[in-house]
Each structure stands twice: as structure tokens, then as C-alpha cells.
């Protein structure tokens, strides 16, 4: 049973608290208690340092859940998009899967984003809207349990009307000022109408077809946007010829160790009344597995043709994960995934102290440029046969020196043997960047260059890595005389973990 909720920033100072009763402890009380009982729960050292150093990760929940006092448990959730910590204080119960506080906090986090129609929720946004956030919590928690059926943004909006202030309109880039002003005027009218006659309020409530959509919505510009995003997680193994020497020049084979594509379709829907939408996807031969679908989708089996009555505003329609390790899939992606192929050669040159990174960015009709391309490089510490030497000065002192690079700049990391090749904001497709560097130790002597692993991160729009595309969006808004809906689709590909091992 929930007792209190707290939101803190990344330094664990309070941003917001919602206490369900007069007995709920305030954050100050809680913090002193936590520092006494389980200080790790509220210290950064836990997440960054000791997680890697001490024997902390033994597979239980202690990093995110701790009992504080008798019959009380504190759950922690970190929202990476908003960089906020959520804490949920509950009374201890023996049964159940313990999962719901985490899920609930995540839901609330998502709900705030949907409610404010933002991509990120800052601490100051919360501070500016204490009353709203409190009201949203009031709507969503009832008697210490999640208020079933109220966790849709529309039912929250019904109780806590969205404020359409001028600053939001000005900053809104998606709509022209003209459109925005029109809409604002209209919304004012609508709310005014609600206040005036109970008759209309009733009608709008009673005609609700589905719990996730309020009735009687009106938009002058009917708009429907689909944002498809995919995130790649792949690991390749570059087969290494141990005999060394010139064989390194051979382009050796890459094999996939494991790979997943996590995809997501987010919809922003501003349509009048209660339309039904049909979203046809071209799956390009991919197997989406068992995706997570929004409640509104009716035919859950046919994923290429999704039919639904959309909720109003922003929502996540489908979350899928394509398993690249399956036999049918792996053949397609075995050598490379996406537009960018990365290869490296090491132990080059006469002293074997040079290495070369080659990036091949394929041409694409849909994609003009790659954003935020960055290649992380990690070298093996140079092995010395003289073991005494190793024990004294250690392998720590060696540096990567760039000999030649066609694009971007190279950053040596504080940790020796690591570095990053950082490209400009945009790198045009169809280019072939090359970086050649050498390794030197502290005394300026050259030493063996052996690449341990290379990681790759980038973002591009215009195309999904799996090739999935939206074929058609059919909006069927019966009987309404509104303008023809405007439909838009956006594709975006990012990398999660892209790693090549040597």
C-alpha cells in the first residue's frame, strides 16, 4: 500500500513530495532515516562507483528497494529521460510480485510527459506546476493503490485541465503561431462551455466509448503523427588471426555474438471526435516477436495492420524487440547492421604500433546525414614480457596519438588506452572516414597496438534499421466535417550498445 511519493533530482534533493496522509513522513524525515538504515539508496556512489568496484551486484533488489523501519519499504526508480529519481514509500506486504511500485512510478513518469506533452520533464517544470502534479497524483492514487482505469492521460486531463499558456504556444515549434492562437481560443471556448452548461458535460462523459479517450474532442487541424524509433544492441566478434604480421591486412570476418533491435512507435494524435485509425506497417520480413501493445489495439495478432481508437495526445502504441539471433534473422544481419560499417586493423606499420579505423557510411536515399557519430576505442594494454616492469610502473602509461584523420577529432580519455573519435554534429552519408593512429608509452617509445574493442554510437533519422516502414495510415472519422487530417511519420535510429570485440 502506497504511503508517500517523492521526486528528487539527480543529487537527491527534493523536487516534489506527495504524502497520502498526515502520518506519511516528510522527505526530510525519510532522508535521515535512509541515511541511517541504507545510505546506499540515496547516494550516487552506489550507482556509479561501488556498483563496479565492490561485490554489490549479486542479483538482488537491494540497489532499488530497501526496507526502512518496521513494515515500511522504499522503492526507487530512476527516470533516465527526465534525470529524476522517484521514490515510493509503501507498507510492507508479504505477497505479490513487488513489481507494482516500480511499474507505477514508471507509469507516473510517462503520464507526466503525456500530460504536459513534453519530451522531457525538468525539475523546474515540476516546481512550476506543484498544484497540477499534486492533483495528478491525487487522481491516480486512491486509498493507497493505483486508481484502476484512471491512469490514462485523458482521464487525468478531465480532472486537471491542461493549461494552455502563451509561453508554451510560442515555444511550440510544431505549430505555427496562427494555428496555436486559433486553438487556444477554441479551447477556451470549450472549457467555458463546460462550465456553463452541465448538459454538455454530461453528454461528453456518457458517450465515452473507450476509457482511454474522452469524447467531444475538437481540433481545427486534425493531425496524426507516428514516430518510429529503433535502438540497436549488437555485439560483433572480429575473428583474429593469431599469427599476426601481414595477415592483419586481410579483412577478417565479423560474426554476430548477439543482437537485438528494440523498437517503439510513439503516436501523437490530435484528432477530433472518436476516429478509428488503421496503421499498416511494412515489416520488411522482420519478426517482431511478442510486442507490448497499447490497450487500444484490437487485433493483437496481425502486427502489420494495427487498428485502434487512439488516445488523445501522445502515447506509446507499440514496443517491440526484434531478435537478431534467430536463424532466419541472423543471416540478414550477420556482417553488419544499419548504414554504418565499422572496421579496424591493428598492429600495422613496421613497429606494429599503428592501428586504423575505417568507417563506411553507406549511401541512402532516405538518410542525408548521421548525427552525433562517435566511435569509442579501447586498446589492450601493451603486453610486456618483462614481468618485473609490469609490477612496478604498471601498464597505465600509454597514449594514443593520431597520425591522420579525415573527419572529426580524437579525444584521449583519462583512462589510458581509451579514447573516442568524435565526429561533427552531422556527417553526410556516403562518406568514408578513416583514422590512423599509433600508440606510445610515457617515455615516447612505441608499443604494440592491439585493439580490444570498438564501440559505435550514432543517431539518424529517415530510416529504421530493420527496414520497417509505415505503409499507410487510414483515419476513419465518421460523419465529422473537420478538415482532412494531416498525417506524418518520422523514423529514427539510435544505437544502444554497438560493440565490436577483437
Amino acid at each position, binding site marked *: 500500500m502506497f504511503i508517500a511519493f517523492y521526486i528528487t533530482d539527480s543529487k537527491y534533493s527534493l523536487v516534489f513530495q506527495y504524502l497520502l496522509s498526515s502520518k506519511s513522513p516528510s522527505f526530510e524525515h525519510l532522508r535521515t532515516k535512509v541515511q541511517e538504515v541504507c545510505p546506499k539508496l540515496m547516494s550516487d556512489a552506489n550507482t556509479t562507483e561501488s556498483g563496479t568496484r565492490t561485490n554489490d551486484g549479486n*542479483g538482488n533488489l537491494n540497489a532499488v*528497494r530497501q526496507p526502512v523501519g518496521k513494515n515500511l519499504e522504499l522503492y526507487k526508480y530512476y527516470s533516465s529521460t527526465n534525470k529524476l529519481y522517484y521514490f515510493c514509500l509503501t507498507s510492507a506486504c508479504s505477497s505479490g510480485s513487488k513489481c507494482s511500485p516500480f511499474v507505477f512510478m514508471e507509469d507516473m513518469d510517462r503520464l507526466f510527459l503525456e500530460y504536459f506533452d513534453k519530451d522531457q520533464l525538468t525539475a523546474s517544470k515540476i516546481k512550476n506546476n506543484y498544484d497540477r502534479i499534486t492533483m495528478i497524483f491525487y487522481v491516480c492514487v486512491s486509498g493507497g493503490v493505483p486508481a484502476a482505469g484512471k491512469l490514462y492521460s485523458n482521464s487525468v486531463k478531465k480532472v486537471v485541465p491542461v493549461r494552455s499558456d502563451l509561453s508554451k504556444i510560442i515555444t511550440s515549434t510544431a505549430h505555427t503561431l496562427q494555428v496555436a492562437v486559433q486553438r487556444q481560443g477554441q479551447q477556451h471556448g470549450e472549457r467555458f462551455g463546460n462550465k456553463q452548461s452541465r448538459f454538455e458535460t454530461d453528454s461528453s462523459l456518457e458517450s465515452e466509448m473507450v476509457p482511454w479517450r474522452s469524447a467531444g474532442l475538437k481540433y481545427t487541424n486534425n493531425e496524426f503523427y507516428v514516430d518510429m524509433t529503433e535502438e540497436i544492441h549488437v555485439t560483433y566478434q572480429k575473428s583474429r588471426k593469431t599469427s599476426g604480421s601481414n595477415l592483419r591486412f586481410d579483412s577478417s570476418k565479423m560474426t554476430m555474438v548477439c543482437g537485438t533491435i528494440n523498437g517503439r512507435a510513439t503516436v501523437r494524435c490530435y484528432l477530433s471526435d472518436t476516429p478509428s485509425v488503421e496503421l499498416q506497417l511494412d515489416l520488411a520480413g522482420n519478426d517482431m516477436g511478442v510486442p507490448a501493445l497499447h490497450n487500444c489495439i484490437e487485433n493483437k495478432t496481425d502486427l502489420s495492420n494495427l487498428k485502434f481508437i487512439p488516445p488523445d495526445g501522445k502515447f506509446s502504441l507499440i514496443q517491440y524487440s526484434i531478435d537478431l539471433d534467430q536463424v532466419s534473422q541472423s543471416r540478414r544481419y550477420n556482417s553488419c547492421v544499419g548504414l554504418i560499417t565499422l572496421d579496424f586493423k591493428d598492429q600495422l606499420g613496421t613497429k606494429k604500433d599503428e592501428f586504423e579505423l575505417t568507417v563506411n557510411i553507406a549511401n541512402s536515399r532516405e538518410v542525408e546525414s548521421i548525427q552525433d557519430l562517435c566511435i569509442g576505442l579501447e586498446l589492450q594494454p601493451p603486453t610486456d614480457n618483462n614481468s618485473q616492469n609490469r609490477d612496478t610502473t604498471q601498464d597505465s602509461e600509454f597514449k594514443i596519438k593520431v597520425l591522420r584523420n579525415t573527419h572529426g577529432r580524437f579525444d584521449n580519455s583519462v583512462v589510458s588506452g581509451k579514447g573516442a573519435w568524435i565526429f561533427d554534429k552531422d556527417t553526410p552519408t556516403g562518406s568514408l572516414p578513416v583514422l590512423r593512429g599509433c600508440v606510445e608509452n610515457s617515455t615516447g617509445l612505441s608499443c604494440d597496438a592491439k585493439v580490444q574493442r570498438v564501440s559505435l554510437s550514432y543517431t539518424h533519422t529517415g530510416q529504421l534499421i530493420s527496414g520497417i516502414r509505415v505503409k499507410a495510415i487510414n483515419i476513419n472519422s465518421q460523419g465529422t466535417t473537420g478538415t482532412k487530417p494531416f498525417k506524418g511519420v518520422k523514423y529514427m535510429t539510435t544505437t544502444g550498445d554497438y560493440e565490436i570485440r577483437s
Partner: protein
Amino acid sequence: MVDSINRIATALESAKVITREAAAVATSKLGESSYRHYSEGIAPEQLRELLNSRNSREVKDGLRRIIAIIASGEGPIDVETYFSDVVKNITFGEAKIKTLVCIYLQRFAESDPNLALLSINSLQKTLIDGDPEIKALSIKALADIRVSSLHPIVLHSLKKAVSDSSGSVRSEVGFAILKLFIARSDEFAEELLQLLDQLLSDADPQVVSSAVLVLHECFPERLDLLHSHFRYFCSVLHRMDPFAQAAVIDLLIRYCKMFLPRPKVVNSSSETGESVPLPDKYNEILFPVYDTEIHPDLDLFLKSLERLVYSSNATVLLATSNAFLQLATPAQFKKSRLPQALVRAVSSSSNLGVQIILLQSICLLSSIDPTLFLPYVKKFFVLPSDDATVGSLKIKILSILTNESNVKFMVKELKYIISNSKSSALVIAATNSLAVCAMLSPGWEAYIIKGLISNMEIDKLPTAVLGSYVDVIRVLVQRNPKRHLSSIMKLVKVLDARKALSDNARASVVSIVGEIAAFEYKICPDILRKLAGTFAYEGSETRCQILLLSAKLLSYEIEKFKEEQPNETYDFSQSRIAQICQSVVHLASFDEDFDIRDRARAISSLYDTGKYEIATLLFQAPKPSPKMTLINDDMEVGDHIVQQLGDPGLDKFVMEYYKMIPWNDEESNDTDDLRNPATLKDYSRYASSLSGSFTSGSKSSATHIKQESPAGISHTPLASHQGKKYRLQTLDEFFSDIPSTRATKKKIIIQEESSSEEDESDETDGADDGDEDSTDQSSSSSSSISVHNNN
């Protein structure tokens, strides 16, 4: 002159202040930040003025400030002193003000019950408000006020509101039941249960959602309440709220175990078709190929669960997996594609807590039946971005899924982690998993031990990691010390070369040496000789082990001597071993650790008094080889405890969650009629057909949510579908939710069942049809009036 200039200046100054204030107020209406600035500047006295104002905007400003103070947990103002100023604003008509006051009441009513009672009257007035949202808010606020004298009044209001026409009001009644139950469970339990039972048969899935949540919280043992709702719940399961889904699945699992017969497993490979009841332990079906004979109601439940694999809520997935574990056969579990959904949820979630719980569940499920997750084994390879906890859980799962066919790439992956990972927690987990791989075959065993030892020699490792290496090697070597003699020799070399090795790692190595003394005695004295020299510099555990080793060797030595020359007495002064042992004992008897001193004394007294047989018994007793099985055999199903070296295992609640509930095998006299569905209470049709205040546009596309209504469920829509029936039924409708009017109701049922399935399919659909005909009836107020007549 100067004076007048001064006067003008001050006037100007004050004017400036005034304009500034005005500007602040003006800009506050523009941006949120500037509003906050203005709001934070409100002085305590000014706040009271604002709260007492008659202007709703000023009241709102005051309330927002109050809420902000509560939410920020700081501020110089004690908000409790404004109690009466805040609470009296409940009379304002505006919804936002009401909500804010209610939030304030929820927080502070307890501390000042007398003043809180002031608000009751106006809250009760709004209970007959036409707007269901306001009604729901009032119910919520009333139930939130924890003042015991108020509870009977609330209960009374609930009895009225339980048959309200609006779903949101009824679902709020559900939560109010929960709140009352928490406050006064002893007195009101019976009455609350009656109310709840009424809500359980509601036609609106949202209302049912809240009702089952409350049932799960308050009356988890009253499974008998579910009899008449079982089939209905199965059919609307996918339309309930996710949190309610998890609760109802938990309830229905226990219901099935209690009231439904155990499924039978039929051997489909043999001609005879022999059948056995589903075994208590999950993975104990002996037939290679089998069919399952299950009760139709259980089948209905499992079928409805299969739709939930598409849920994005991890709680639901966990509940569903538990249901399949408890109620179905492994084949059915696999067919449900639930394992795939769990794996997807892990990889797409960014919620650490959820990931950990999911992985722990997968860990447990796969230790029960590895084949469930075997196809997705590569999904458990550790990614660079994974948290250490997630990573070590993944490695643990990998070790469970290891078998002959995948051990090759598994070992490769684990070795990669060991040699490349920066996190020692991961390395330790991977090392432990390697031990599991090693147990598959002697070949792998030798390979892995060799690899680990060579790693120890080369790398500079943290002590914890090195300790885990030695632990694993010790466990592996001990299984068959003869085979690994050369490895042990290498270990000893490492012991010699690496003085920085941690105490317990060194101690482990020394104890391994003791193990080989039984069959490879001749190398041991030399090792002991070297160790004895550095005795003083070792850690306490190692010292203890050296002492034991020396005693052990001496006892072997004496035994050997006795075999060769049975009649001679053993001469301590002639024996090198005895001398080394003596010197070790001597050193140990001055040890700072009392345990070592005690042992030294015991050993010296044993040998001094010549009780060699006792020494032999003590020091040569064979040690049981350490168990490295993942699943302990003596555990019950559901307690399949995943044990690994140096690992505390899974969190306890995960095991408890998946604990097998026993089937109730008693022959029950219950027939299936028990689960004949009760009549649904469909208030919405009733309301809409009367009020009929619909806009024509709203008709549109309600047909989209087609509900596969199973044959067993009879929907009794109380409103008509055709206009001409409408007048006939108005009276029935009025009394239909009063249980005593059975006779009239029956007629309706018959009518409905003869109608087409589409009518049955969806109530919103029907509601539309109904309202279309009755637009002329209009007037929304009639709906609320009629409800009150009804009660």
C-alpha cells in the same frame, strides 16, 4: 524646494513599487516561472487574505501556494494553521478549487477532526451533483477523511452511490470501500462485502477493475465470491486496468486451485491414451508427448490469459507467468509465447527494479524448466550498458541454461567477460558460472581450470576476484583431486609468487594441498616447509590452514611409519615433518587469534599423548565434495532455489511469489452451475437511455472493441435496442438493480439471448443504439433524478 523634490522622489518610488507589483501579477498570467515567482512572494498574512477572498482567482492563487508549500516540503509557513481558511473554500463551485481543498483535507483532516467536519456538509451536497466527476470527487474526499465519527455517514453515502449511473462514480465507491475497510474493518466488513459484491458484477470493466483490486486487498480469502463472476472476469480480463489484471489473476489462480478439478495429462504417444493427473511439481510429466484434458472453465481462463502476453505492464506478465506455472503444463506455457514476452520486457525496459524482478523470475522459471528460455539464451549476454546487478543476474541465467550444445559459446562469452569486464561483481558471477559449465564434462573442467590458473598468473586482479577464482578452482579440483594434480602444483606456485593474494584465497589453496596429501604425499612436505617459513606473515585463516596441514601431514607420516614398522615407536626427533609441525605448533600457540592457539594446543596434546588413532580420525577424514548443483533436490517445487558459490541467491519474495499452491483434490460437490454467471449490472445503458443527451457524432465507431463473449455469459442490458421496446421497459429498468425483482428480469434475459450476438458483444454499442432513439427524451438531469428514486 529640496523637500518637495524629496516628496516627489518618494512618490515616484512608491509608484515604481506599485507598478512592479502589478507587472509581476500581470506576467504571472503569462509564464509558469514568473507565476511561481509571484506565488513564492506571497506573505503569510496575504495568503490568509487570498484564501478568504470571494474572488475565485485569488482563492486559487492562495490554494496553489498552500499546495506548493506542502509539495516542496519547505517554506517558512506552517500550512496547518490555515486549516479553517482552506476548508471553507470547499463551497466554491469550481472543480479545481474543490480538488485542491480535498487534497488538503486528505493530508490534514486527521490532525483536526472537528474542523474537518465543517466540510462534510458541502461535500455531501455535491454527492447529488449532476456531474459524475464531481460526485466521484466527493466520494473520494469523504472516504479520505479519516475521522471515525464520519465513517457511518460515508457508508450510507456509498450504499446510495453504488448504483450510480456513472462508471467513474461506481469505481470510486470501490476505492472508498477499501478506505473504510482499512479504517473500520471489524465493524463494517459485512456491509462492505455486500457493496463490493454488487460492484463485482458490474458491466463496466473499469468498475470491475477497482472492485477486484479492493477484493484482492481486503478479502483475499473470500474466493467463494468469485463463483458467479469467474467466467465474466475471464471474458473481460483484457479490458481491465493492468494493475487490476495482476490482482485478478492472482485471485483466479487460487480460485482454480481451490474449486476446479486438477487437469489430466494424457499420453498421446501411446495407443492406450493413459492419463495421469497434473503432477504437483511443474516439470514432472513423464510422457514425451502429451495432451492435456482440462476443465472448460480453466481452459477459458488460460485462453484469456494468452491475450495478455501483449501487455506492456511487467506486473501483468509476471502474474500471467505465475498462472501458467501453477495451472498449466510446460507445453502450454511454451505455446503461450509468454517466455518471449518476458524476454522482450527485460530488453526494452529501462526500469532497473522491473528488470531485476523480471530477471529473477526468469532465473527461477528456467531453473524449473530450462527449455522455456533456451531459445532466447543469447538475450542474456551481458551488454556494456547493463547495470552490474542486471549483468550478474543475466550471467546466473546463462549458467542455468548451459547444456552440452551451447556450452562452447557460453564459455567463450563468460571468458570474455572475465578478461574484459571492469566490474568485479560481473567477473565473480562469470567465474562462478564457468564452474557450472566445467561440470558438464571433464574436458571442459580441465580447460577451465587451466584458463583460470593462467589468468591468475598474468593479470593483476582485485583480491575479491582472485578469491573467487581460487574458490571455483578449489571446488572443481576437489571433485577429483587426482586428475588435477598439475593444476594444484601450479596453484601452489601462484601461492609462492603472489604474496598479495587475499587471506582466504591463500587459505583455500593450502587446504587443497591438504586434500592431495592422501594420495600424493611426497610433494606435500616441501610445500609445508615453504609455508612454515612465512607463517608469521600470513593472515589468520591461512595460519589456521597451515597448522592443520602440518598436523595432517604428521598424522599421515605416523601412519606410514606404523605400516612399515608396526612394532617401533615413532621418533619425533628424527622426523623432519614432526619438527616442522612442532615449530608451527609452537608459533601457533602464541598466535593472537585464540582459535588458532586452541587448535595448536589440541594438536600438540594429541601427539604428545600418542593418541595417533584419534589424530588419524580427525585429520584424515574424507571431506564431502562441495555441491555445485544449481537446483537443490530437497527443495519443494517453487522453492527451486538457485544456489551458486558465494551467492545469496534470489530475493525471497520471488520464490514466495512462485510458490506452488496445492490443488484442492477433495471431491467437491460443487457442480459447474456454481459458476453460472450472475446477471450483470449495467447502469450505463440505463442512464443513457433515459438521459439520451448524445451528440450525433459520437455514434461512430464503438463497434471496434469486439468482445468475444463466451456462450456462458448472458448479458442483460437493461435498456432496449429498439425504440418501441423502450417504453415497455422503463419500469423494469427502474427496479432492475434491486435483486428482488427476479420475475421481470427473466423476461429481459430471454429477449436478449434470442437477439443477435452483436447486441451481446458490446455494451457501448448498445448504449449508442439506445441513445439514438431517445434523443428526444433528452434532459440530463433526469438521469440523476431517476437514480435517486431508485434508491
